[in-house]
């Protein structure tokens, strides 16, 4: 058993600060266990959101020693016994109290994503798709909406003024999942450029680094969507070919 000093943020929008708690940790414990121990023994009013304790509900997102991660998936044996560990709420979102933040920004953004629009069925009236058609997008469906990627994305985190114009990595993989869907026939490239603001992403891959589901957000979601956007808006050869063939741009979202 080792004893740690946990510096936990206590407060709300009107003010607050980090408060020290000395907590014992047994083998196999995670950060969330210690937060629960603080609630049970020292601060019953400590606000903390959690649910499954198995890394699948995405509720206990926090910043442990400044790194966005799930408290239930952060094992205590990663830290030196006796060390001091800071636990802060997600700093990108408005605080409600202590470790609980208001993540509704992400749900509001999700409402703006153009939904799936089915292409016409096959000649026999049935829809068919094969495993190779959906392998690519199944990865995106692993998202547990912990919003760690949104929290760490510097466009949202450090530039409040961009929040309106930028959807963020969670929404980009949602858009990618729809756009790459074999049964979908909606063109989201204009949406991704103008409404979701994918050009603001400078692909520094922090979203991928913090994803607890190890989704390749940047390589498999954002960059492919940037390339699809480039097809439509930044490729002079495609533009010339379209002019030559008398085709119109497909800029409907």
């Amino acid at each position, binding site marked *: 058993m080792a004893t740690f000093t946990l510096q936990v943020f206590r407060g709300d*929008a009107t003010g607050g600060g980090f408060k020290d708690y000395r907590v014992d940790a047994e083998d196999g414990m995670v950060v969330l266990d210690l937060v629960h121990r603080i609630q049970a023994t020292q601060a019953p009013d400590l606000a903390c959101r959690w649910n499954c304790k198995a890394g699948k509900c995405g509720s206990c997102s926090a910043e442990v020693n400044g790194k966005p991660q799930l408290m239930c998936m952060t094992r205590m044996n990663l830290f030196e016994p006796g060390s001091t560990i800071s636990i802060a709420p*997600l700093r990108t979102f408005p605080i409600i109290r202590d470790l609980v933040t208001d993540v509704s920004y992400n749900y509001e953004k999700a409402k703006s994503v153009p939904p799936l629009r089915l292409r016409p069925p096959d000649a026999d009236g049935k829809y068919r798709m094969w495993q190779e058609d959906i392998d690519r997008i199944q990865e995106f469906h692993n998202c547990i909406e912990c919003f760690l990627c949104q929290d760490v994305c510097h466009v949202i985190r450090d530039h409040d003024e961009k929040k309106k114009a930028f959807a963020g990595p969670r929404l980009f993989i949602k858009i990618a999942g729809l756009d790459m869907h*074999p049964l979908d026939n909606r063109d989201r490239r204009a949406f991704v450029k103008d409404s979701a603001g994918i050009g603001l992403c400078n692909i520094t891959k922090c979203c991928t*680094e913090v994803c607890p589901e190890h989704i390749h957000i940047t390589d498999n979601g954002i960059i492919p969507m940037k390339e699809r*956007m480039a097809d439509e808006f930044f490729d002079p050869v495609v533009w010339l070919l379209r002019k030559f063939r008398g085709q119109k741009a497909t800029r409907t979202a």
Partner: protein
Amino acid sequence: MIGRVLKDQSGRVGVAARPPIAAAHLRQDTWWALPVTVVVMLGAFIVYSTWAALQNAHYFVPPYLSPFYSPCISATCLHLTLGWGLPDVRLPIIGILSPAFLILWGPGLFRLTCYYYRKAYYRSFWLAPAACAVRDAKAGYTGETRSPLIVQNLHRYAWYVAVIFIVFLTWDALLAFRFPAPGGGHRFGLGIGTLVMWINVVLLAAYTFSCHSCRHVCGGHVDSFSRAPVRYKLWRLVSRLNEHHPLFAWLSLFAVGLTDLYIRLVSMGLIRDLRMF
């Protein structure tokens, strides 16, 4: 206490205020080590390659041609790749422009607009952000939505150019088996330089064909892979390579610099090229 606590980050109290934590970051690890390493490595390569390109000498020692000077297309080249040379470009003060500058823009543009290198230099040089969950150094930010960074969207064209260079470098590597014979003419041989040039071209090809734009062009733009089986196979192959794109980016960078250095040292007579046969 970890940092000074304010009412909120702008000094105001609001209903939808963020957590009132003033510190730019709360990280306790050596997050700065990676950006510093990237600055040192990329900086060293830029300094060396610029110096090597300015030399206009010691880039060819039969049968080896430095990748910094390939394809050699200037009339004064020591080794004319295409058998004919373009007229020399003369600049004021500088004089004859080194043939390296006629071609280095190609691979340079490819690396400059590469998705991996963008991550590397946006973090290390731009500090936007220097590391994850570390506050951006500058307040204003427009990403890649305005000039000049909006040009990054044309990365695929830099890739097309890079593929042409791979063809030339492969040709150079083939010629690296063709040693001058004592009585005139040529004969087949293998030297350390031959191996160096082949390692270089293989790593450069791995970097070029693991590119994200290559992945898109090969099949990433397709929605229904079952209707495009060849593209699907190609896309899967490139996707597997793409997983190692950052590794190839660094290895190929070292390889191209070291290949030039090796040929330069042999050409200057400072080291001797060992011949296997």
